[in-house]
Structure formats: structure tokens, C-alpha cells
């Protein structure tokens, strides 16, 4: 695969949020304000880039059986570094993101990319994939936050929108608005691509690291649970 394609596929074609449907929790929670969305997106991108590079560099060293715990430790390490940096240089952002900052550890995008891409590809390719996916995540978050912030509070990145500021639909910034806008955006992506994106008859688990266990759940009931 050529390098440019690896970088750009995350933007739209394989957008982690809208097409692969990974990392739904932070997407819904943080997208109330466009500025938060950018902050969260950048933080996740940095973690994704570092973890992809590290995991790809160590892919021959890490034994296959304990790879998930190893990845989690690596990712948690990078998240802690990012957390400390944000606390030191952008304390307001830390306050806004709150619990969702440490929860980047369990963001399925990061573990998913490690499992799907970084442990099979070279360091350079993994780095490009990390950047591309990170930008795709930020982009999706930003679009969603823009819709929710403009409709919900009548502002955008600190600017006030003339008419909407007096007629805001405050439910858009609350939880139901998040679910609703996210559903509509995915429907829009389906509509535009006319089903050319991966068909989601069911909830897409392709990139989820626990897909193996989940698949077992769907095929056979009461079977033996195995390690994810």
C-alpha cells in the first residue's frame, strides 16, 4: 500500500468514528463544544501516534499470548504522559475533559489500531496510520461538536452566532442530543456513500479488540469464554 493512502484513508474512507464506529464514548461525551473536541482529538492523536510507533517497533518482541496486556500498559503509559502535559500546560482543558482524559486508555480506536494495523506493519507505516486515524477522529469530533455547539448554545469556538444565541436548543448539548446527532451523522455517511462503506447490519465490531469474544457471544450461547 502506498504511504499517502495509508495516511489519508483514516480521514474519510475508513474514518474511525463514522465508518468503523470505534471510540463512541469520548465522541458522544466530549462533543459539546468545538474547542473541547479539538483538545480531545489532539490528545488521542498523540497517544495513538506514540502507541502505534511503540507497538510496531516491539511487534517481534511481544509474545502473542500476552499482547493485549502489553498494549494496555504501553498505552496507559502514554496516556499518563499526555495527562501530565495537559495538566501542566492547559489546566482548563483538563477540567473540561475530566474523566474522559484518563479514559483514552480504553478508547477502542487506540487498542483497535494496535491490533488491526501496528502489530503487522512497519514503524513508518504505523506512524502514518496513527496520524491519519487521529486526524480522522479529530475531524469527526469537530464536525459533531460544531453541530451541537451551534444549535445547542448558539456559539462556535467562542464566537456568538447572532440569531441562534437567543434561540438555542439546549437539549443538543445534553446527552440525548449527542446520541441523536451521532445517529444522524452515521446515517448521512451511509446515504452519501450509498452503502459503499462497510455495511453495518449489526453493530460493527471489526476493529474492536474484543471482537473475538463478542463474535463468540453472537454465534454460540453458553460456550466457553476465552481470553480476548
Amino acid at each position, binding site marked *: 500500500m502506498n504511504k499517502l493512502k495509508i495516511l489519508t484513508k483514516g480521514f474519510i474512507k475508513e474514518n474511525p468514528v463514522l465508518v468503523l464506529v470505534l471510540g463512541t464514548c469520548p465522541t458522544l461525551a466530549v462533543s459539546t463544544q468545538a474547542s473541547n473536541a479539538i483538545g480531545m482529538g489532539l490528545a488521542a492523536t498523540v497517544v495513538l501516534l506514540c502507541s502505534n510507533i511503540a507497538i510496531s517497533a516491539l511487534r517481534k518482541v511481544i509474545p502473542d499470548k500476552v499482547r493485549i496486556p502489553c498494549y494496555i500498559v504501553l498505552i496507559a503509559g502514554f496516556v499518563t504522559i499526555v495527562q501530565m502535559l495537559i495538566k501542566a500546560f492547559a489546566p482548563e482543558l483538563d477540567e473540561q475533559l475530566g474523566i474522559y482524559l484518563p479514559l483514552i486508555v480504553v478508547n477502542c480506536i487506540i487498542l483497535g489500531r494496535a491490533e488491526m494495523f501496528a502489530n503487522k506493519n512497519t514503524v513508518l507505516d504505523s506512524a502514518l496510520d496513527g496520524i491519519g486515524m487521529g486526524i480522522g477522529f479529530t475531524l469527526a469530533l469537530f464536525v459533531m461538536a460544531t453541530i451541537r455547539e451551534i444549535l445547542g448554545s448558539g456559539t462556535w469556538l467562542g464566537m456568538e452566532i447572532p440569531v441562534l444565541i437567543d434561540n438555542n436548543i439546549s437539549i443538543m448539548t445534553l446527552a440525548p442530543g449527542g446520541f441523536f446527532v451521532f445517529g444522524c451523522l452515521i446515517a448521512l455517511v451511509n446515504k452519501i456513500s450509498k452503502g459503499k462503506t462497510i455495511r*453495518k447490519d449489526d453493530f460493527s465490531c471489526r476493529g474492536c479488540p474484543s471482537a473475538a469474544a463478542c463474535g463468540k457471544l453472537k454465534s454460540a450461547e453458553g460456550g466457553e469464554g476465552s481470553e480476548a
Partner: protein
Amino acid sequence: MEELMHFDFKGLVIILMSAVFVNNYVLQRFLGICPFLGVSKKLDQATGMSIAVIFVMLLATAVTWPIQYYLLDPNDLGYMQTIVFILVIAALVQLVEIVLKKYVPSLHAALGVYLPLITTNCAVLGVTILNITENYDFAASMINSLGSGLGFFLAMVLFSGVRSRMEGGDTPEAFKGLPITLVAASIVSISFFGFAGVIEHLFS
């Protein structure tokens, strides 16, 4: 001992109720969305998953709370919280699985499939971290975890009912599958706003 027995009963009830209804983990805080959307199709699966989540949440809180206050804080290692907690949860889930498999095979048959899914469930890590940031004492932490787990259970069961009704509905082509599920989740989430005032005036 006297101190211990004399805990604030009203406070605990309020914590429990608000964790279940007002700050519902799935519908208001967006934690654990993946299993909420992925495993809520059938009622029995939704129930099994939720019971496993309640179990692991309680266990994880019982272990991580002492670790934070007796191990990390005295040694100025508070910044290790994220790494330590996720490792403890992952190890705990593995341990529970092994123990259940060996000693309680019937329970393992029922819950075993759901356990691996829980390691990367943000609701479990979320509840352990929130207990620390909210400065809850041990009893309050356990109650908060129980409430969060029950809230997850309530949301899962309610939503699996909504989804089974939706199966037969005539949805537009683009909305089929996940999008309509999310729109339905949004409506279920609105219904939980009704609880907002109830808890505040529970004892007045």
C-alpha cells in the same frame, strides 16, 4: 467501630439513587456505550452482561480504593493511577474467570463469555477513577459502584425492550442498523431527565 457503624445512611441512599437514575452511566455520562449498543439486542444477553459488569465494578472498587489510599497516595504515586487501575482491572477479570471456571462452572457458563469484554469497558475504569475524584469514602465508593452497575443494568434491559420493538419497524434505508439505534437511545435518554428533580427532594 462506633464511627464505622454510624455512617450517613441518607447520604448513601442519595448516592445510590443518583448513580442509578440521574447520572446514569450509559445514558447521561456516555460510559460503556460499546456493550450498550453491541449486546443489547436480546434480553438474556443484556442481563448476563449487566450482571457481569455489576460484579466486576464492585470487585474493582473494593481493590482499587485501598490501593489508591494506602499504596499510591502515601508514596506520592498518584500519577500512576491510570496505569495501576487498568492493570488491576485486567488482572482481576482474568482471575475471576479462572476462579469461576474452576469452582463455579455453572456461573462461568452463564457469565464467562461477557468477562473478556469487560476489561476494555470504560464504565469499569470510569467508576473506579470517579470514586477517587469525587473523594468518596470506602462505603460511598462501594455504593456508588453498585448504583452505577444497577444503572447500567436498567439502561441495558430497558433498551433491549425498545430494540425488540424496533425490529419490525419500517426505517429509511440510510438509518438502518446503527443510526436508528442511536436515535432510539437518544429518546430513552430523554426519559431519564424525568428523574432529575426526584432525587434532590428525596428527603425533604
